[in-house]
């Protein structure tokens, strides 16, 4: 699971063009949206692309994303459950 989380952090950085960040800058349980990393609904769309391209998981309704994308922990848990 921790390998998945490390990989996820790299993928998040790549997909969202957070080029100045390294995986060590992102804590597993830190909020990604709102106050945390400051991501918003546009960035949530990128997460949908990330899940589809890297894990073959399709989210058809963008509004479902809020729960799933809360943190690296919740994202990893969702992937484990749905892959």
């Amino acid at each position: 699971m921790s390998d998945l989380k490390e990989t996820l952090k790299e993928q998040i950085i790549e997909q969202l063009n957070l080029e100045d960040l390294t995986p060590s800058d992102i804590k597993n349980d830190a909020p990604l949206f709102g106050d945390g990393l400051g991501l918003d609904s546009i960035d949530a769309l990128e997460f949908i692309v990330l899940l589809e391209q890297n894990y073959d998981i399709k989210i058809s309704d963008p509004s479902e994303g809020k729960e799933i994308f809360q943190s690296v922990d919740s994202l990893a848990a969702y992937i484990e459950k749905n892959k």
Partner: protein
Amino acid sequence: MKILACSKISDQGIFLNGIQQSIEKTTNNWKKELYIKLGVEYPKFYKMDALAKMAFLGFELISNSTSIDHLADDELSLLFANKHSSYDTDQKYVNSYMEKGSPGPSLFVYTLPNILTGELSIRNKWYGENIFFIQEKFDPEFFIDQINFYFSKGSNACLCGWVDSAKGIEECFLFLVENKAGELSIEELNNYYKQ
């Protein structure tokens, strides 16, 4: 027209009001290093594109030396220009759908040069006038004309900028002027730019 402060970021280094700052602009990570050195807490910085990051940092530098708290939240006009529009981000966005499999929305929203004025406004809660021009080179006379237009329409201050990121060139020149007694000549402005 009184110039209150200016910052310049280029291959020559990082300058505030004509004085070179101790942080180098040599590594690829310079934006992050400057962000950390300035002690700013603004996570949204990380998802900005290069243009917005530079404008953001350029103004954070200025605000360390100069306060504009006396201005109402819509008295500051943002007058910006560059040569290459949003070139770097345009290329990255095109790459996202030509090479990487699908168009990236978080890139697409930055494929406009004026987004940086939006980022500055959001950060500082400014509701004033904004405009972005595409010019062949930094033209001090043009900026002075524009500043005079906005002063005559009731603006009390202007934050002006030449911010460009294209083909390996990164450049950010910001200057803050207030509608107060004082002279700012074309030559003086050009000298600040040439630091």
